[in-house]
């Protein structure tokens, strides 16, 4: 079932075309990797999808609706966009309590999620003392607070150690097996090869490849495929 749809999405900043006619469908129950070099337009497309930026034209829909039309956004979509997105003078638990309040989510969700992301011992410490990996785990907990059906994750493996990355991979697989839609942007191509079912590759704002990973890579590594597609290949 199609869960996320980009329809001829354009986003322009002045004369710079950040996203240039992106059209793609993302299926539920699968992990889709959203790949592209720096400045390719991935984050801009995700921001348009999540209502943080207004498309110049075209649309980005979640279950047929714009993000701004969702009745309970925090319970329908979870997102990790910025690991520094916590009030640094507050504890991890306080930050999550604020998010629960804003999203109308029961705070009973906080303790098990902190346990799941292995942050319980640091839950009452101020986040300004958190490492990048700890902030990443807290971001994931925040995204999962509302038990959403759709997850949009921008570089979720940043700052995670190898054990953390393996944990993230398994967690994403478990969530996909529950029928959730997972859209993950990342630069870590070797890791993505082991994690995703489908890929979207964009360069200079345009979609240059999409489909199941085996179909896109045709037996090559994802890194080789990516480098040849974006014109930086061997």
């Amino acid at each position, binding site marked *: 079932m199609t869960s996320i749809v980009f329809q001829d999405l354009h986003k322009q900043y002045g004369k710079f075309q950040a996203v240039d006619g992106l059209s793609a469908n993302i299926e539920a129950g699968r992990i889709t990797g959203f790949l592209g070099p720096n400045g390719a337009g991935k984050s801009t497309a995700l*921001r348009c999808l*999540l*209502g*943080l*930026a*207004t498309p110049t034209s075209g649309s980005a829909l979640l279950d047929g609706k714009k*993000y*701004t039309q*969702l009745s309970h*956004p*925090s319970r329908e*979509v979870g*997102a990790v*966009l*910025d690991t*520094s*997105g*916590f*009030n*640094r*003078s*507050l504890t991890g638990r*306080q930050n999550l*309590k*604020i*998010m629960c*309040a*804003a*999203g*109308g989510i029961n705070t009973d969700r906080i303790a098990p999620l902190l346990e799941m992301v292995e942050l319980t011992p640091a839950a009452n410490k101020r986040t300004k003392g958190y490492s990048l990996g700890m902030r990443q785990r807290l971001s994931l907990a*925040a995204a999962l607070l509302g038990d959403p059906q759709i997850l949009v994750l921008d570089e979720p493996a940043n700052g995670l150690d190898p054990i953390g990355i393996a944990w993230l991979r398994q967690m994403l697989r478990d969530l996909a097996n529950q029928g959730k839609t997972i859209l993950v942007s990342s630069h870590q191509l070797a890791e993505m090869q082991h994690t995703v079912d489908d890929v979207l590759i964009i360069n200079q704002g345009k979609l240059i490849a999409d489909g199941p990973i085996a179909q896109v890579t045709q037996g090559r590594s994802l890194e080789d495929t990516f480098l040849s597609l974006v014109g930086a290949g061997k």
Partner: protein
Amino acid sequence: MNLIKAEFLKLFYPRRTYGILLAAIAISVLGAAFTPYALSKIGSGMAMPLTNAAAIDSVYSKALAGYIFAVIIGVLTVTSEFNNHTAIATYLAAPKRWQPMLAKIIVAAIGGALLNLVATLVGMGSAAYALTFYPEAVAPASNVWLDFSLVALLTGAVLSLIGVGIGALIRNQNAAVSISFVWLFLIDRILAVLFVDVGKYLPTGLVTSLMNLKFNYTGPVVSVNTGDYLEPWPATGLLVAYGAVFVLAALLTTNRRDID
């Protein structure tokens, strides 16, 4: 209600809020407690001896000096979201942007009003205590405790809303706070005293009007005649209008900009 609860948590969790409250109390106490001493020394020359009930009112009026920190509460309500990069989480939870901004407006108004009320009450308490050291001091001309408490609530709420508007227009926290301080501590006060024709329409002049003080001091450098200021009700209307303009600016700018 969810968003209002979230905004209250954002206001009351950080220690910074209590630091701002202490600063507001400190400036109110300093002004109110020191003024009886100043008037006992030079008040006669200013036709403002402590035997004059209007002078006593002016002593208690210093307790409202903390209102600038209500503006800071309003500024921080908006700018801290961008300073901490929490704006994304806020607008993901409530993508109709006017909703979180409306919650901020409500919470900033309540927070600013409470902050100013507490600072004013403590300041007036310190004024009352300081006046006990001056046997010649008479009773105030008006019901300062009730009147100034109401003024504190109104000015705290409205100035906090002005702060919300400033924060929405100037997202850089340091710049927004600095501009607010310089304007209210310096420029606004100078205009209110030296250029009354302009200053009476600005926040400091309007707060002075709301307190309905009655004195006329002519000095070698500055002269202050409270009769030059607006009457309390027109001043109230103008102050509320300022608040409304800044609220509108906050709502409009928030709806139009992308969230970084």
